């Protein structure tokens, strides 16, 4: 079974530029998550999708961040314009079962973003 795929793995941009990250979840997984992991901190949920609908985006800075999952499969996270404090690893995760306590989130390798 292929894991969660993310691209690019690394990205360096200047502040005020825009950037996009792509995630392809495990086949058949209906739920997709984007996390932000700042150096020295644990991952923080930015947005959760159930199929192509948003379940939770309460911690997504909507003035500069946007995410979509149009066909309920892969997803794109965009930052526009980027700030220095957006430097972090962006992790994508997916899970197959919702409404069940025994679910497990499977994580991709992440995209390391550096904003200069």
């Amino acid at each position, binding site marked *: 079974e292929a894991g*969660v795929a993310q691209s690019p793995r690394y990205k360096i941009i200047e502040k005020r530029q825009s950037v996009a990250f792509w995630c392809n979840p495990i086949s058949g997984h209906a*739920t997709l998550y984007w996390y932000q992991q700042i150096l*020295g*901190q*644990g*991952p*923080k*949920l930015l947005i*959760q999708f*159930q199929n192509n609908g948003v*379940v*939770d985006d309460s911690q997504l800075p909507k003035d500069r961040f946007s995410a979509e999952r149009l066909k309920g499969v892969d997803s794109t996270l965009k930052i526009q314009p980027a700030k220095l404090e957006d430097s972090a690893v962006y*992790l994508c*995760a997916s*899970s197959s079962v*919702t*409404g*069940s*306590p*025994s*679910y*497990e*989130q499977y*994580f*991709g*390798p*992440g995209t390391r973003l550096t904003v200069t």
Partner: protein
Amino acid sequence: AQSVTQLDSQVPVFEEAPVELRCNYSSSVSVYLFWYVQYPNQGLQLLLKYLSGSTLVKGINGFEAEFNKSQTSFHLRKPSVHISDTAEYFCAVRYDMSNFGNEKLTFGTGTRLTIIP
């Protein structure tokens, strides 16, 4: 606000020695508890989880954790560590028990385990 505390940011341990990584959470309700491991330049991998039942949970790679409700703790242990255990370890809690479909995890800040040969 609900939170997860990992007091030790770094833990150096000699190879084949035992280790305990501490995790405490704040909650007045039932919780689900998880430990994840993150190897360098990789995503997070689930080590073990506590959902209900026995308070001693066994996971992969010889790790185990014990849920202590009275102390709101979920410490991770391994009796004998190996060089390959060098990684970052994250404790995570799911608090929202009533809203199935919103499986938000709250993570601790992580503990970097370094194995000394």
